[in-house]
């Protein structure tokens, strides 16, 4: 007699093996109190948060808190409706206008999450006879979105513009639109797309468009925080930008912007836009205020990059293997999932929260302790994080317990 969960039996056995031993479940962390952007109480312990994607630390921005409180009082706790029914308030439209101004694009559509923005747009933008060429390391929401489309889905090697070129060349004679899908910064390792090269490849072919998911690069890159296209100077060549309010913008929600005149049609075809409730007014109000803070947040970006260097260099110097260059994501590689879990438990017990990321959610089958920086981290906090990493890793025998390095002459 087969139970309905029997098909997960292999996965359950894997989970049990990986999570064997004493200690907290890395996938069921509970924050009892959030003290600030960088600290929380987890299991009665004051914990430094080093894995929240809260890159600019705007979750407690006083201006956004006030706007959210005001909207809450004026418009209530929720819209109880879809954007196409009763769920579009003045705030939702103002937020879309603010997004257009922020990105210098003609049109913006706000979704209830970043996941839904990708799922909605990617499932509808391309149709039968069209092609989607996606970077192999794209986020799950992109995978789910393209799977739901009627287009043919082709993956190219991660960050390999030459491989993309080769695959587009094979399609050159075929009618149908081609959509290239990349991310500005990839979430697991924090590596950037080779956007200039990808744009150059795109321009070689007709009917070929580019969509970039700027979830982790918005607010982080570019003088005004418009992400990798701004940093690279190719904003006009990116046809569609998808993003989220749940990282640098410090709240929740997703969006897509574009300057195509008929872009608004997506409101009538994206099921992820039509058949779900819209964002609550307080969220919309805080997102709008925080977009302004992101735009003027040059000093925050400077602090964020300074913090990225401190943590990256600190963890590298103690002998840990890092899978990333200096970026707001610092990915520490553990030898296998079991060691990664033990490492993660050691850190949480010592008061540091990072993300545990295991295959198949990671590239190259890596088992990762994924850290992300916040502009609000102090140097002292980051020194403490490095010291705790060092202590846990030494106790586990992952790094040599050596005396402080002295600069050689």
């Amino acid at each position: 007699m087969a139970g309905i969960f029997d098909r997960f039996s292999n996965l359950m056995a894997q989970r049990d093996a990986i999570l064997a031993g004493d200690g907290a479940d890395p996938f069921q962390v509970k924050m009892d109190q959030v003290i600030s952007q960088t600290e929380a109480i987890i299991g009665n312990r004051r914990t430094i948060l080093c894995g929240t994607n809260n890159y600019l630390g705007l979750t407690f921005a006083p201006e956004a808190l006030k706007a959210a409180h005001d909207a809450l009082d004026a418009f209530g706790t929720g819209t109880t409706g879809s954007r196409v029914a009763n769920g579009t308030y003045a705030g939702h439209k103002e937020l879309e206008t603010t997004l257009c101004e922020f990105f210098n694009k003609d049109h913006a559509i706000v979704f209830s999450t970043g996941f839904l923005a990708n799922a909605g747009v990617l499932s509808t933008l391309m149709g039968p006879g069209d092609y989607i060429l996606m970077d192999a390391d794209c986020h799950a929401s992109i995978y789910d979105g393209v799977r739901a489309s009627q287009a043919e889905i082709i993956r190219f090697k991660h960050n390999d513009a030459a491989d993309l070129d080769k695959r587009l060349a094979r399609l050159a004679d075929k009618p149908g639109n081609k959509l290239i899908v990349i991310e500005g910064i990839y979430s697991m390792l924090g590596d950037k797309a080779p956007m200039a090269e990808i744009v150059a490849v795109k321009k070689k072919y007709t009917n070929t468009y580019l969509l970039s998911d700027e979830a982790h690069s918005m607010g982080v890159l570019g003088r005004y925080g418009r992400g990798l296209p701004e940093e690279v100077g190719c904003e006009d060549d990116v046809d569609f930008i998808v993003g989220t309010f749940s990282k640098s913008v410090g709240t929740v929600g997703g969006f897509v912007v574009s300057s195509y005149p008929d872009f608004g049609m997506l409101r009538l075809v994206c099921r992820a836009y039509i058949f779900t409730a819209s964002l609550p007014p307080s969220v919309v109000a805080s997102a709008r205020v925080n977009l302004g803070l992101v735009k003027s947040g040059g000093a925050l970006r400077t602090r964020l990059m300074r913090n990225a260097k401190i943590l990256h260099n600190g963890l590298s110097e103690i002998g840990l293997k890092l899978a990333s260059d200096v970026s707001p994501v610092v990915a520490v590689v553990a030898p296998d999932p079991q060691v990664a879990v033990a490492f993660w438990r050691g850190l949480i017990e010592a008061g540091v929260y990072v993300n545990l990321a295991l295959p198949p959610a990671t590239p190259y089958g890596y088992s990762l302790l994924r850290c992300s920086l916040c502009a609000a981290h102090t140097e002292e906090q980051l020194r403490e994080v490095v010291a705790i990493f060092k202590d846990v890793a030494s106790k586990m025998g992952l790094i040599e317990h050596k005396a402080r390095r002295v600069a050689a002459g």
Partner: protein
Amino acid sequence: MTVNGEPSSETVTALHELLTPFNKTGVDLKPGTRFSEDLNFDSLVVMEFVATVEDRFDISVPMNMLPDITTIHELAVAVEKIVKADRG
């Protein structure tokens, strides 16, 4: 190339060569060998293996085709179909 819907021995031999390093269960590779059940491929291994097939034959295997490819025979037929469509 394909004769009466049967893939050529060159294609099958090439696939066997590519599969060898992925064959962790050590089963004999036959036309009916299943990637999931017999070779224990999970989604990640599938992606890695498909990438080597794409490199070897200089083709793109669309993700949409993958659910219908469960055996070595089906993969060989699919590869030849794509090669034919690409080269005309």
